[in-house]
């Protein structure tokens, strides 16, 4: 059970995305109640009327506050493209409830509880994945969710069935939002941070897997272990590199295939602590930013000391920049892994049979595995192109600089996907390479355990078979975290 309104971590967001239960904390409820009382004491200003007047000027026709609210929410349902996957929608709902739980939005606890109730009942609104610039927050994606939460139409998936909002919301509390609550549910870069949290969670597992792939490859190429010596890495002083060295020394403990008296290796081996280490250093910075945002009041205006204060907390820039950084970091991890795959399949460079299979010629072995990895890495390079460097004026020049945060975060998740596949290929190819080396010397015990784990899902390659199936099997294991240790 995850309590919203207390400190929220990346791992918890990933757990909610995967289906964990959530509750709104008692402290948060009290904060929200008190803050809402302040808002009422101020006369419950109709922020939607203010915002509408500001956006579009005075109008001739009269509208009731409720009519205005309905039109406001519906009018922001402007997303396009394929729907977000359910875990992303869950993460977004939880992160938005967390924002409200700060008790600075002038909302009743019921506003956050409505989102919590949807998570608990498994009501997952259909939210188009495209169309947000991440400032003033992820208005469109959140509006699609709010439309279902407020029973104003739209569709949701519940128990695997696509339903209209009324049917999907059956059994949940009736919640009739106040104007400030409608604005506060949709105003902030919350899809961005939700996707960012999922990307960070995946990235952490993938970097641990990359260390495992590196260790296996080092025994295949009979690497020189000087590069993972503590003194060497400490002398340069980057924390990530030191960390990679420590893990590699653990993974390669008792290795005889890799040792200090080998000749210096190619960069894809020797410089791996620098490359993987810099990705770790990047990730720890990025996680810090994302966790700050998970625990930040990403809303506007805020109700502070009985004043309605307009700020810019909804702008997605902090997370957008972090996601563009993550994309670059993960792409270089994929890139260096692919070069190791290239080496391991290149007979002249290893002294092992070309493409790691007997009777080459008749068999092509792992030839295409390296092509697949090369294609994936190249794809990552394109996806790494930063989104946050762009901004297009929107909202009649009121919203004249925007973050493009959700584009950056979606790009990061696409790169996580491709990186998982590249690492799967490295592990698959390395397992085969290790089996040739076992004839020369025993494997390090940890490496042997990893090789055996691969063999639980794919047999040794003796004659050509459908490579796709092997790649998919190991990739599924990588995504499930089976090759992190």
């Amino acid at each position: 059970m995850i309590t919203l309104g207390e400190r929220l971590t990346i791992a918890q967001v990933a757990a909610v995305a995967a289906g964990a239960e959530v509750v709104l904390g008692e402290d948060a409820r009290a904060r929200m109640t008190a803050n809402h009382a302040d808002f009422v004491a101020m006369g419950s200003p109709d922020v939607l009327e203010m915002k509408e007047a500001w956006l579009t000027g005075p109008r001739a026709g009269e509208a009731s506050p409720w009519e205005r609210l309905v039109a406001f929410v519906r009018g922001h349902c402007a997303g396009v493209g394929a729907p977000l996957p359910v875990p992303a929608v869950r993460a977004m709902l939880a992160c938005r409830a967390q924002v409200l739980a700060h008790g600075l939005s002038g909302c009743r606890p019921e506003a956050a509880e409505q989102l919590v109730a949807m998570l608990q009942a498994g009501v997952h609104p259909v939210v188009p994945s495209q169309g947000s610039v991440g400032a003033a927050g992820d208005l469109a994606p959140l509006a699609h969710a709010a439309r279902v939460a407020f029973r104003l139409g739209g569709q949701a998936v519940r128990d695997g069935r696509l339903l209209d909002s009324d049917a999907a919301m059956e059994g949940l509390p009736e919640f009739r939002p106040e104007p400030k609550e409608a604005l506060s549910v949709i105003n902030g870069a919350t899809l961005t941070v939700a996707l960012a949290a999922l990307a960070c969670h995946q990235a952490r597992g993938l970097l641990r897997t990359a260390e495992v792939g590196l260790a296996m490859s080092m025994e295949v190429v009979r690497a020189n272990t000087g590069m993972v010596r503590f003194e060497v890495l400490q002398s340069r002083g980057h924390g990530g590199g030191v960390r990679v060295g420590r893990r590699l020394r653990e993974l390669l403990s008792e290795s005889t295939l890799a040792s200090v008296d080998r000749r210096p290796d190619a960069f894809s081996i020797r410089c791996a602590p620098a490359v993987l280490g810099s990705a770790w250093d990047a990730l720890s910075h990025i996680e810090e930013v994302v966790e700050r945002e998970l625990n930040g009041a990403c809303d506007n205006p805020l109700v502070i000391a009985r004043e309605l204060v307009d700020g810019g907390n909804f702008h997605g820039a902090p997370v957008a920049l972090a996601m563009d950084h993550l994309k670059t970091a993960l792409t270089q991890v994929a890139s260096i892994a692919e070069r190791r795959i290239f080496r391991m399949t290149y007979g002249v460079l290893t002294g092992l049979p070309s493409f790691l299979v007997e009777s080459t010629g008749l068999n092509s072995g792992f030839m295409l595995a390296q092509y697949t990895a090369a294609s994936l890495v190249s794809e990552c390079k394109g996806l790494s192109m930063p989104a946050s460097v762009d901004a297009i004026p929107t909202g009649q020049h009121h919203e004249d600089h925007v973050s493009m945060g959700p584009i950056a975060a979606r790009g990061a998740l696409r790169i996580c996907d491709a990186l998982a596949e590249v690492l799967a290929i490295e592990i698959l190819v390395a397992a085969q390479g290790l089996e040739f080396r076992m004839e020369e010397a025993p494997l390090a015990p940890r490496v042997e355990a990893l090789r055996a784990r691969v063999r639980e899902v794919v047999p040794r390659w003796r004659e050509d078979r459908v490579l796709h199936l092997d790649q998919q099997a190991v990739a599924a294991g990588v995504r499930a975290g089976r090759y992190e240790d």
Partner: protein
Amino acid sequence: MAVTLDGQNLTLEHVVAVARGGEAVAVAAASYEEMRRSRAWVEDLAEGRRVGPGGEPLVVYGINTGFGSLARVHIPFEQVRELMRNLIRSHAAGIGPSVDADAARAMVLLRANALTRGASGCRPALVDLLVGLLNAGITPVIPSRGSCGSSGDLAPLSHLGLIVSHAVDDPDEETGSAWVDGELVSGREALARRGLVPLTLGPKEGLAINNGAQLTTAIAALAAYDAERLVLLAEVAAAMSIEALRGVTRAFHPAVHALRPYAGALACAANLRRLLDGSGLTDTVPGKVQDAYSLRCTPTVLGAARDTLAHTGSQIRVELNAVTDNPVICLDADEDDAFSAGLFHGEPVGIAADVMKIAVAELASLSERRLFRLTTGNLSARLPASLRRDDRPGVGLFGLQTTAAALVSENKSLAWPASVDSLPTCEDQEDHVAMSTTAARRAGEVVGNARAVIAIELLCAARALRYRLDAEPGVSLGRGTRAALDVLESGLRDDDEAVPSERVTEVLALMGEHTLIDAVEAAAGRLLRVGESP
């Protein structure tokens, strides 16, 4: 009307008709003769009837050698069937979700068409089987990721190979997967349901299936078709916006464009004039001498997109009718009839797809700036802010401009060229690759995003024109823009609760069915297509 394949006459329209419309496919009688001749050459070789000067068996790449860097290994003829089987299986190395059904079908069609030239040395039965898949409504599952586009789309095509070339008597054999009757089934099951019989591949037939950039070309061809039609829709949208903003049409005068005579700009200006002919809204603001760039420079920007798409389209049209195999068998060309060359390399289509992305991204970028003006009070010649309707609450179409901006921004990242990258593969034998499949997939995404931007402009412009008509009853619209407005207004559901997102979906449907362009042309006359000039 069946599409008849002869390797030389396939058009983009044919590809779309078969890939999306389920059009029947046939093979030209003359092509069978060509295929039989080259097949006889291969079989003579494989059965030892073709020998070198010293009586030694001829060695031909991929027929009796390994593949890639393994060409150095000679394979005895008695192992050739095993070699072919291994080739398809080991090269079925794709990963990730399948490409869309239209791309998968287009890939099968293009591969069949390439083989009909008779340069690949396969049996006609292989082409018949590929055509059989199409006619029987069997859509192969082709993993979308993992191809470098050189040497061709080996992995994606090998997934097709699994379906058509498995053994009938081995129930455990992996046979790939396919959709048939809306169901996802094994390749074996798909063929069985339609009474098709898989082949056991003979010499050379593995490479005949998998060596060439047909997935690249399939995706690029569909994107090119959509992009060419999108240009017309963008011109209709531009004309509507220009009219709603009371634009100055002198910027489209033929005398102006004759001074900087790009064919695309001339065509775009001519189309705008045709669409706006008869408008009582344009050129009516006293003292306004010129408009902002997003209006005034429309022929320049869309013209550049037109010229670019004309070039990229012609590259893709060459590839639709190209042999992309290696080795190729050119009977009558030389004493030694088999040529190892590089026809499979995806670069021609990869570069075209990358450039197509830039052209289409710019088309959408310009559109976004026009619809920004439509929705921005001080820029819209007194249209209501955000095109809000005064008779009901709401923020108008404010949200859709943000959506358009997001799509345009996303296109900027996607436009990053894939083909500039290359990584050495296959023990440095295949040391420069195209990355064309990635380029084509991204082109498809860019075109999809741009379509949504144009849909948003059409929606905004229709709202704006309705406002003008209500404010000035009796004012005339252009012949083309009037017809477009009528289609849009009658095509949108009468539903006050519909949200902008749903409106975009409705407009996209009108764009996709050609309803809009057909109605505009019926009213205003034929518009110039990409590649045409006045």
